[in-house]
């Protein structure tokens, strides 16, 4: 029933948001594109002219490039799998009748409020330190040799830290979705003698598909850009260098803005591939 007038009014209302985001996207993008075609070395007098596709070629041909892509995808996938699986289980558990549900929920969502820098620092120093960390004490208590988490199981450790931060988010969304599940339907299935697993796969999981989609979409967006957790814990060592960390090393540590910008363009391409991929798979679920 939208009239022409209301359509143009709607466009007007959308304009500020669209224009702002367009600016936020285009201005840095154009500057990044510009830099990526130039030899730009801040410590050697700045912009030294046009180099064509040199930076692009150099960035991909570097031995660090493919491992970085792999690490990025591993972290994103690892965290997604952990948070979604544990999130579903936790959501189902929290949906059950129990005493003190409110308090438990408070405990479970707390990590979401902790800033990434703080959580990385706390995990690195107070838990994963191989000498004074709590996990080392625990290992020793059981007579085991303490693990040097951040060097021997670096990627797993980072995935764990990040999962700890994002599990509350996944759990909350999934919990809200579960709570909207028609409990009569579940009870009927229970009466019919449907086993737990069957009930889970035929009733609960399909009902959650939309929520899972949302969790995956939102988390992927944040996970692709993960930085603080790596900066604080390993500094990119031990195979934890993601694409965005590699760009950081090129731009800030090596002070090669041209090369880093070329990396930035690759990262944008990767983000878009992931985005298209997500939307293909996930977009259907978002149809309303």
């Amino acid at each position, binding site marked *: 029933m939208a009239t022409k007038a209301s359509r143009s009014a709607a466009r007007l209302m959308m304009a500020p948001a669209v224009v702002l985001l367009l600016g936020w996207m285009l201005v840095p993008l154009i500057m990044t594109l510009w830099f990526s075609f130039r030899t730009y*070395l*801040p*410590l*050697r*007098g*700045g912009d030294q002219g046009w180099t064509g596709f040199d930076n692009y070629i*150099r960035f991909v041909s*570097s*031995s*660090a490039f493919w491992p970085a892509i792999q690490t990025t995808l591993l972290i994103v996938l690892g965290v997604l799998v952990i948070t979604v699986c544990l999130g579903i289980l936790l959501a189902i558990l929290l949906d059950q009748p129990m005493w003190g549900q409110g308090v438990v929920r408070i405990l479970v969502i707390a990590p979401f409020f902790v800033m990434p820098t703080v959580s990385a620092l706390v995990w690195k120093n107070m838990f994963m*330190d*191989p*000498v*004074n960390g709590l996990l*080392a004490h625990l290992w020793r208590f059981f007579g085991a*040799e*303490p693990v*040097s988490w*951040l*060097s*021997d199981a670096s990627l797993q450790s980072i995935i764990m830290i990040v999962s700890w931060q994002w599990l509350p988010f996944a759990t909350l969304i999934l919990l809200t979705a579960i709570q909207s599940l028609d409990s009569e339907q579940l009870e009927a299935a229970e009466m019919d003698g449907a086993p737990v697993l069957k009930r889970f796969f035929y009733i609960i999981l399909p009902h959650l598909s939309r929520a899972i989609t949302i969790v995956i979409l939102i988390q992927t967006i944040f996970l692709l850009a993960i930085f603080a957790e790596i*900066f604080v814990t*390993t*500094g*990119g*060592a*031990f*195979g934890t*260098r993601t694409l965005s960390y590699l760009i950081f*090393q*090129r731009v*800030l*540590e*090596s*002070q*090669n803005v041209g*090369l880093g910008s070329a990396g930035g363009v690759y990262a944008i391409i990767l983000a878009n591939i992931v985005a298209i991929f997500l939307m293909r798979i996930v977009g259907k679920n978002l149809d309303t």
Partner: protein
Amino acid sequence: MHLSSALRAATALSLIMVGAAQAETITIATVNNGDMIRMQGYTDDFTAKTGHEVEWVTLEENVLRQRVTTDITTKGGQFDIMTIGMYETPIWGANGWLVPLDDLSAEYDVDDILPAMRGGLSHDGTLYAAPFYGESSMVMYRTDLMEKAGLEMPDAPTWQFIREAAAAMDDPANDINGICLRGKAGWGEGGAFITVTGNSFGARWFDEEWNAQFDQPQWKAALDFYVSLMNDYGPEGYATNGFNENLSLFQQGKCGMWIDATVAASFVTNPNDSTVADHVGFALAPNAEGVEKRSNWLWAWALAIPAGTQKEEAAKAFIEWATSKDYIELVASKEGWANVPPGARTSLYETPEYQEVPFAKMTLDSINAADPTNPTVDPVPYVGIQFVAIPEFAGMATEVSQEFSAAYAGQQSVDEALAKAQAIATEVMEAAGYR
């Protein structure tokens, strides 16, 4: 008499008023090391003397580097004083990004700065940053454990002796590691340590044509020695240990020996923090038998003024205050001579009270033994001992040291790490147009 003191009072008063009239607030970016935090505590003394106020931006070392480098290269102008090191100063100075410190006052006595420090913080003979404290590296060891092991530490040990001593002191049952060394990735952490270790085995980063040298036997010897030493007698997870981790281990009595920055000496001998304060001895950093270069580095944390600041005068006043003899005396009077910022001034080492500090002599000897212009056995085209003073070094060395750390953690062999290091260094030098 009467008149002159009145005159003096009047002059002093007018000085204060002049100072007050130009009172400014300067912003200082600094690292969160103990001596700098102490300096923050004395800011009031500076304000009382000059009328200028100070805003501190205290950051962890890695964040600080990232912040100040971005700011200086883009001329962001967010800071009036930056705390930088011996690596950055000559490069930035050469680019004209720092205010030359060539007009410091007479009572500041710039000639009192230790020649090694002054040289390392200058470009073409002009001083660009004033050293707040300076350091070399040396062996710190537990005298009680050494005695128990029936060994005596020579003043100038070799790596072979260090290994022997580590074996003798290693005592896993009592949670004592024979030796603690840096293994953490990062050019200023494990990267610095392995570079000087390389020097002491006759290795070098580049030959005179800027060819990377990680394919040479000296590097292999150095790295093999380090890895086997640490695997046998080092602490668990040494591949992630840097200065802080080792300091804390040593203070808790978990290391027989520790080779690291000379400034650590005052921390490990401070009974408030250290459980082993009374049992620490010092020796020069080791070398491999028959190699003339020792594994001691040279570093200074220094204060510099970015060109373009509006508050150059106030910033200079601060630098003169913070790196002066008076500041050293101020700290000595409040916290004792062992806690003054070391390694910057000749006069400090001539002070009788300071000469009684147990680590003073070894610190000075270590600093004097370091020669940044001639760091390796074979000739090199670069300046710097634990670093190569070119802009590309920080990024390249961080990546190289990440490969080394992966080898320390057993994720790849020494040969693989060296091959990757060679590839990284070659790649970077080609990209930067050296070859």
